[in-house]
């Protein structure tokens, strides 16, 4: 489904371009859940942003193939149309645009992109209500302005509600667990688990292991200094939880210094 090959990306800073991803490789197949872990500043969120098409990052090398298409050639909305979904670490508040209007526009724009007929108001409402109920979302959140005044937990829940509505092929969750209490974490994780099936895939970007208790990964990768330096199964996440990241850093540094 997703094939990342030698991906390099940098961001403009006051001190000039700073390279963050330095040749990253990753393959994700349908039906898989991948966790990307790593210490702060290793490039986890950058990876998520680059895949979604955030313009601040300049891709300086490498390729990303998504279902046979060159993902890097596509505008963010086209990537969404193709089936990429990024659950934001910090969902944006948009005053004046109601959650429902936003969601209806998004659903129908993606349907249009895929040459499907747009949903009429009735079927849309039905779909929205059932998905909102699954996420245990208060119905007032649907009529309110998008994310405006939502609590941290409500915002994250709203992200997963959008995931359920849009049913993408690949969901990238960027630190979705940050700022969530354990109850909200479970609701979010359940939402992701309901979404998951053999035809789609999930990339979970997280700093901590606790989310992976609920969303069980098939593979765990450690991102450090812009590269994936270690890959394993869910046991790797537990090891990282127990030992921290220092041993990985040492391992990498001892290799690079040789």
């Amino acid at each position, binding site marked *: 489904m997703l094939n990342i090959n030698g991906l390099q990306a940098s961001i403009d800073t006051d001190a000039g371009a700073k390279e963050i991803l330095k040749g990253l490789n990753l393959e994700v197949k349908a039906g898989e859940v991948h966790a990307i872990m790593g210490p702060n500043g290793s490039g986890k969120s950058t990876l998520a942003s680059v895949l*979604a*098409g*955030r*313009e601040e990052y300049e891709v300086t090398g490498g390729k990303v193939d998504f279902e046979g298409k060159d993902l890097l050639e596509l*505008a*963010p*909305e086209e*990537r*969404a*149309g193709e089936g990429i*979904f*990024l659950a*934001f670490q910090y*969902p*944006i508040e*948009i*005053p*004046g*645009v109601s959650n429902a*209007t*936003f969601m209806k*526009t*998004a659903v129908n*724009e*993606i349907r249009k*992109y895929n040459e499907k007929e747009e949903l009429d108001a009735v079927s849309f409402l039905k779909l929205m209500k059932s998905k909102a109920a699954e996420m245990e979302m208060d119905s007032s959140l649907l009529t309110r*302005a998008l994310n405006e005044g939502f609590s941290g937990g409500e915002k994250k829940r709203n992200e997963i509600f*959008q995931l359920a509505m*849009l049913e993408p092929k690949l969901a990238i969750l960027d630190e979705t667990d940050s700022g969530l209490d354990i109850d909200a974490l479970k609701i979010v994780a359940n939402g992701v688990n309901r979404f998951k099936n053999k035809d789609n895939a999930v990339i979970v970007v997280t700093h901590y292991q606790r989310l992976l208790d609920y969303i069980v990964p098939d593979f765990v990768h450690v991102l450090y200094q812009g590269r994936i330096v270690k890959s394993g199964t869910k046991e790797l996440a537990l090891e990282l939880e127990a030992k921290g990241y220092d041993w990985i850093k040492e391992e990498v540094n001892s290799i690079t210094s040789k």
Partner: protein
Amino acid sequence: MTTTLDDIKSTFLAPFEELAEKVSEITNTDKVSQGKKAALEAIERNSFPTIKNEEWKFTELKSILSNKFELQSKEDALSSDIDLNEFDYFLNKNKDLNSHILVFINGHFSDKHSSIKELKGNKISIQTLSNTKTDNPIFDKFERDSVSIFSDINAAFATDGYVIELTDNQELELPVFVYFINDASQKNTLSQVRNYISVGENSNCTVVENYITKGENPNLINTITSVNVGSYANVKHLKIQADAKSQFQIGSTHAWQADKSSFTNTTISLAGKLIRNDLRIISGEYCESFMNGLYLLNEKTHVDNHTVIDHQRPNSYSNEMYKGVLDGKSRAVFNGKIFVRQAAQKTNAFQSNKNVLLSDDAILNTKPQLEIWADDVKCSHGATTGKLDEEALFYLQARGIPKQKAKSLLLQAFAEEVLDSIEIDVLREFLTNEIENRLSIS
């Protein structure tokens, strides 16, 4: 040969020569007649403001004053065959809009285009200025208030206008939709209307002024609307400047609010060459005043909003919200003055002016001006200017919404706060659509 300010003035005033003579010969002693004479004298004394004048610093009148305008006689104005339905902005096309309709063409009232629904009794009247005797006591309620020489020219020479009067405890159920049409298809047109709204105690009404142009010749409309709001009365006055690409507009609205009254002015500017709106409100005790503005400009449209809320008595509330979206080489000027006089303790006055610039060539000049003599008041003001929020755009795009549509959504959301305050559904929906169309093209 250089053109002096005097030359400009005499060129502009040339069409009024005959009228000026008539005014100078007026012997009536009523307030209106004497006001005309006073205005005529003021015209002689004053000159057109230049950018050296603080109040006109960013609005140069050269583009207006370099034209030679003509006045049209009533016969000529009404002889042209205007089909209102040809105008997109003739909102009464929409059958859901139930309102009184007043139509003025080139400053003259057009009876055949207008329709006033039946009014019960004689407590409410919707009239024209030309049909109202100058000694009608209604005029005694209004003070002369001149913003510039344009006010004086209007006061001396306005051809017609509307006069709406409600005595005490009246409700004008349907809004009055007034259409000021400048027909500039043949000639450079100058029209002048003078309007009065007088609302007695505990009465209320809504008046919507719509500005429309036909034809491409330069044309100017110079207006004054004076509003007298009685105690416990509620008046809503709207100015919709939406379809007048070739139009210059100089207009002022003056409202005097008696104690415990409410007044709302909403000014929506979507198209025009150069528009200058002056809004002045004098508020009594326990009054509410709302000033809502939205300007959505492109190309070289220039819109200048100058507003004044003068709190003269205690315990009043005013809220001003002006929002703008500027594209192309457009320019917007906002100057909002809040005066809180020494007697006006416990005043709450708020002002905000928010702008989104879509183009690097658009210019915005915004200036809040608070002058407060009382010490126990709550006042705030804020002005912001910026581009569309890139983070918000990306968020929408990441959900599959194309960039152009995302922009349009965000701008509509931005404008909606002002449009939401419009209670006439047909009008609000019309403007919402209009803005949606405009924003999806640009």
